[in-house]
């Protein structure tokens, strides 16, 4: 499993960079799961949701899985409002940072 930590603001201008890093992390036979740590992500809009869903589709096509963890504040509310917490593997516990030491 690989873990990618995301920091700062995720929007139209940063989504391509994020997707490149995530795609790199997924590469190779040894990695079957990528977890994305959002503890230090300060802002994200629908572009971020779209990036995570694209990446999910990409991983799924290779028989791999992804999950978000430690989302908090505004990013957590955006994920909840767009109804994607479940499909992005961010359970309520993970999302509030209470569980899943990873």
């Amino acid at each position, binding site marked *: 499993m690989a873990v990618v930590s995301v920091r700062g603001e995720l929007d139209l*201008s940063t989504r391509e960079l994020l997707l490149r890093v995530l795609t790199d992390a997924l590469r190779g036979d040894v990695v079957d799961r990528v977890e994305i740590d959002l503890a230090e992500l300060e802002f994200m809009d629908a572009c971020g949701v779209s990036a995570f869903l694209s990446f999910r589709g990409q991983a799924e096509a290779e028989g791999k899985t992804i999950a978000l963890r430690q989302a908090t504040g505004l990013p957590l*509310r955006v994920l909840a409002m767009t109804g994607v917490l479940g499909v992005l593997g961010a359970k309520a516990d993970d999302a509030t940072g209470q569980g899943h030491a990873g």
Partner: protein
Amino acid sequence: MPAELACQRLDEDGLAVLRVVGSLTLATAPHLRTSALKCLADQPDAVVVDATRLSVPDDIHLTVLIAAARHAAAWPGVPLIVCAPPPPLASALARLGVDRYIEIVRDFSEARAHVKARELAPHIRAKFAATAGAVAGARRLVVDACTGWRLDHLTSSARLVMSELVTNAVVHAGTPMDVDVHRRGRYLHIAVRDFDPHPARLVGPKSETAPGGRGLLLVDTIATAWGCTPTVDGKVTWASFTSRISRFG
């Protein structure tokens, strides 16, 4: 021009004054609408409808004024003012709640005072090119505005909605844009004007896992109100937030 209604334009001091004489009916309403929109297209400080000699036999035709006011509100800065309506018309405007959309004044000096007060209201405008960097730039603008106007409880909502509106302008319109943030009473308004006529529509994602279609869904969830209004050369997508209720953050 229908004979029963004449619209004459007499501008003064940056105000577009539309003197409307005659009877507003089903047949004459389109003429008033067209004349009002022509005035708005010039972006004066205000459009003042001089209603001294206007009669409206049937309340229903007053909706033309509401429609014109909505159009005017799309790009903040051009209020529609009805000046000196005769008493029967004034009561009809109140009855229909038209005064929620349109400022109704007794005379021209009151109209000018209203425009002046409006100019003094907190207001920020900026232009951005259609680049990905515009999104963060516009976000900073609205965050600074909320801080300066002590609307901290609206910062999260306004910041996110601004992000979505500007992203749409960059991605879908692909034209330069004007961003407007202003406070009026207990409302914060944000508006993004672009130069592409295709309206913003709330479609929603195609499926639970489809990547697109969630931007306007967020706007619709978070803003107190939002909309998209055509302008002569494109459109304005706007959102407003009441400063009493925060639905996000």
